């Protein structure tokens, strides 16, 4: 290994290790109930972001100076069974896709970390927020740099868990918790699709390394090492995974629900990074999209529908964060269209620009509302609101329908509840009742003590 390789290895390891160390410290502190002060947590977070960002900049500078476009960082096998050719390879890749996404993650995490220090000052869940934030940061770094499909899945899972827990951050209220559960449910289904796609790719190509999947060239010039039909199957599963993670149609229902979390988490997760992770996945595996025209058309169609729905829904919301969330969906839809059209650099630039802008908008949203309030109080009337000029040209019935469609958030949650959740509950509720009938008849008496559980046993004053 020459001097340059050693430098790359050291810097790359620092990029990955920094968020992992932050997570270990905050996780250990939570486990042993070690009460770190707010200032310490904040400093640790900022240091972790900095020690991840600076080595990444160092790698970028060296790559630009030397003209190297692809830097793999090998950390060896995490698990290996050589006889069966099974290995879980810890490989991270710095290339034209991962470096911008990594830097974006670091910068936005840094900004939001600094903002949160004041926003959640003396909040009871301050430590909890930063623990979840560390899980998220770690997940984003792993996802951005993953050189194998398995490593990408690990990062993807960490991001999903932290997002769901942060939506439910305000524990005392039921709504955020219910919404966190909804987010998690959608994520689990999309994760299942991703895992099946990953295993299928592993099965087809014999390895999970992206280098093996894209048989020639580094991003964005790879060619898929699988046939068109296989690409269609795998790509369809990846599309479901990306749709779930990026709240594309028909999974958009979780996005406004995610706004129940603290504003900084809304800004960073659902406005900027997490919501782009599906698009990042499609970008990373874009050679697979190129292998099938049908798949490309599916991607474009999904993007168009999501963008259109997002545009309609964002205009009629009565909550600024929800409105911004749907505006994000519009942009993500357009980014997906760009990916489907093969405009990869444009999509990447669009992600970066949109993520930065949306973070700032969401962070500014609460103070903007206060400013508007003050302004309206001072002028004694509402500020003039200009309607979209194009709306007037539509027939009244279409306008009404669009309004209803947008206001009811595209009926997506209703449809999921009606067509998936309710039949599921009815089917397994029926099995549950059947089991009870069988056990009752064998026992010749009511066989379920659990039926007598009070719905509110937390009334503990009387418990001995």
């Amino acid at each position: 290994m020459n001097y340059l390789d050693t430098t790359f290895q050291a810097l790359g390891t620092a990029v990955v290790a920094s968020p992992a160390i932050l997570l270990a410290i905050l996780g250990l502190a939570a486990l042993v109930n070690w009460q770190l002060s707010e200032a310490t947590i904040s400093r640790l977070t900022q240091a972790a972001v900095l020690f991840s960002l600076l080595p990444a900049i160092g790698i970028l500078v060296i790559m630009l100076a030397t003209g190297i476009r692809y830097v793999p960082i090998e950390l060896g096998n995490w698990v290996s069974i050589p006889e069966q050719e099974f290995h879980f390879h810890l490989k991270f890749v710095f290339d034209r896709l991962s470096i911008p996404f990594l830097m974006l993650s670091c910068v936005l995490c840094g900004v939001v970390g600094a903002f949160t220090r004041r926003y959640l000052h003396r909040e009871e869940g301050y430590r909890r927020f930063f623990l979840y934030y560390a899980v998220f940061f770690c997940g984003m770094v792993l996802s951005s740099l993953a050189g194998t499909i398995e490593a990408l899945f690990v990062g993807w899972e960490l991001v999903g868990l932290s997002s769901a827990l942060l939506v439910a951050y305000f524990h005392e209220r039921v709504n955020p918790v219910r919404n966190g559960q909804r987010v998690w449910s959608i994520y689990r289904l999309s994760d299942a699709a991703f895992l099946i796609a990953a295993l299928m790719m592993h099965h087809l190509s014999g390895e999970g390394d992206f280098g093996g999947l894209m048989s020639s060239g580094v991003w964005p010039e790879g060619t898929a090492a699988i046939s068109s039909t296989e690409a269609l199957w795998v790509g369809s599963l990846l599309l479901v995974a990306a749709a779930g993670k990026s709240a594309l149609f028909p999974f958009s229902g979780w996005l406004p629900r995610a706004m129940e979390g603290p504003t900084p988490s809304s800004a960073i997760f659902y406005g900027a990074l997490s919501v782009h992770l599906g698009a990042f996945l499609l970008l990373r595996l874009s050679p697979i999209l190129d292998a099938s025209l049908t798949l490309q058309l599916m991607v474009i169609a999904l993007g168009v529908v999501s963008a259109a729905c997002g545009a309609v829904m964002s205009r009629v919301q009565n909550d600024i964060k929800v409105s911004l969330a749907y505006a994000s969906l519009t942009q993500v839809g357009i980014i997906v269209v760009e990916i489907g059209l093969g405009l990869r650099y444009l999509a990447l630039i669009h992600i970066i620009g949109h993520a930065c802008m949306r973070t700032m908008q969401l962070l500014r949203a609460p103070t903007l509302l206060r400013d508007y309030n003050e302004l309206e109080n001072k002028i004694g009337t509402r500020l003039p609101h200009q309607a979209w000029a194009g709306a007037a040209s539509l027939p009244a019935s279409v306008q009404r329908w669009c309004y209803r469609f947008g206001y009811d958030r595209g009926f997506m949650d209703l449809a999921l509840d009606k067509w998936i959740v309710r039949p599921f509950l009815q089917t397994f509720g029926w099995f549950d009742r059947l089991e009870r009938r069988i056990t009752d008849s064998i026992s010749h008496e009511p066989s379920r003590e659990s039926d007598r559980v009070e719905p509110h046993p937390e009334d503990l004053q009387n418990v001995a």
Partner: protein
Amino acid sequence: MPELHFPWIEVSILVPLFGALWIHLLGNRESVLQHAIAICGVTLALTVGELVDFVSIGSFEAHDHWLFLDWLFQRDIFVVDELSAFQLPLAALIFLVTVMSTLRTKAPRFSLKLTLISESLVLATFSCRSSWTLIALLIAATIPPYLELRSRQRCTRIYVLHMAVFALLLVVGFAWLSHSDGSSTQALIAGALLTAAALLRSGIFPLHLWMTDLFEKATFGTAILFTTPLVGAYAVMRLVLPMAPSWALQSIAVLSLVTAVYGGAMALVQREARRMFCYLLLSQSSLVLVGLELVTPIGLTGALCMWLSVGLSLTGFGITLRCIEARISRVSLVDYHGLARQMPMLSGFFLLTGLASIGFPATVGFVGMELLIEGAVDVYPLVGTMVVIAAALCGITVLMAYFRVFTGHHNRTLVPMHARPAERVAVLILTLLILGGGLVPQPGVASRYHAAEALTRQRQTNPMTEQQVGELEIETVAIGKHSAE
């Protein structure tokens, strides 16, 4: 056969047995719980010593240095091998943490004497290779829960019915096998009876009702101890796997798969925590069986890793629920209880163990789940897909349970809700193992792979399965070639 340097196996079986006698002599003294914890601790230390000794020998199997019971049994009755070497400390740990997490106020309801007898029987079962003794131990292990149900004056009909059928199938099946001349029809019927027995004990759908009934009527601790060591899976490994034809294993795999998805879905619709836990355990333990019946080294390795993971994580999950139940009575999942502020440590542990049980990254279950799915996809792609769906359903259930128990409006209580020192120690031990096994999985995986290889070889050398294994291998190679093309 190589010998251990100390009679670890027999001493570890006898210590809880004599411990039960000691507890009986102590009567209802206040210190009885501490004594039980000490006995379980010594037993765990002995099983760990056995594991260390066995690893240092470097053999596939070994028996005790000198046998106390040589005059009573034949020499090779208690043998430790690569399969059981890890199961023994795991089983001892499950008993230790369950006893440790028993509140003193609840000790009179949870029979420590029967628990120690059960521990002795479970350790003897996991150490036993002789088929008739194994069958006797499997049947004997069903008695302590029955005695508890009787003492609690609960209806035992469902439990007795299932366990009686289990015992009958085992005895008839093995007697038939012993007296058959090895002709295919007779051996097949005997194998089918043994398979049905093993499936019944594992709680495979639709023979799982005894499990939900046990969780309803027995103490939570007893139900956890009777189900989480996965004795049914061990019966499959010892009695069914070496002789069952491939089609029989495929049938078990399909049933296990149905159970995994059914259990995951049923867990999601439950309104009470014990039942939810029961179905979650059913789903995850069925995944272990799915892997066992793939009979490929990767699938078997995944199943054996999952076995350890399920034992550790679901025991942790179960004892956390039990700790909560001990304080607020049965836990409804209809409403939000808001317990996070009062029990922060248990809330974190609940989430950790729950996530570990579904194979979340950086926990002990992750690599096992990956290997299992990888093995399943290699043989039957649809099986891999169903495993992923079952895991997804269980994942949704785990977070749902976490939210229901720990979030919501906080209520002030008169009851101390924080974790007691013994509970804290139990939690920390399991946390270290769950995270340690997740972050440094290679040693565990390598050892499980050796065990899987040995089991595959054992199946290949068995005249009843030799031909089918050969056919399966040819078929797998053909599938592989077809995929490559």
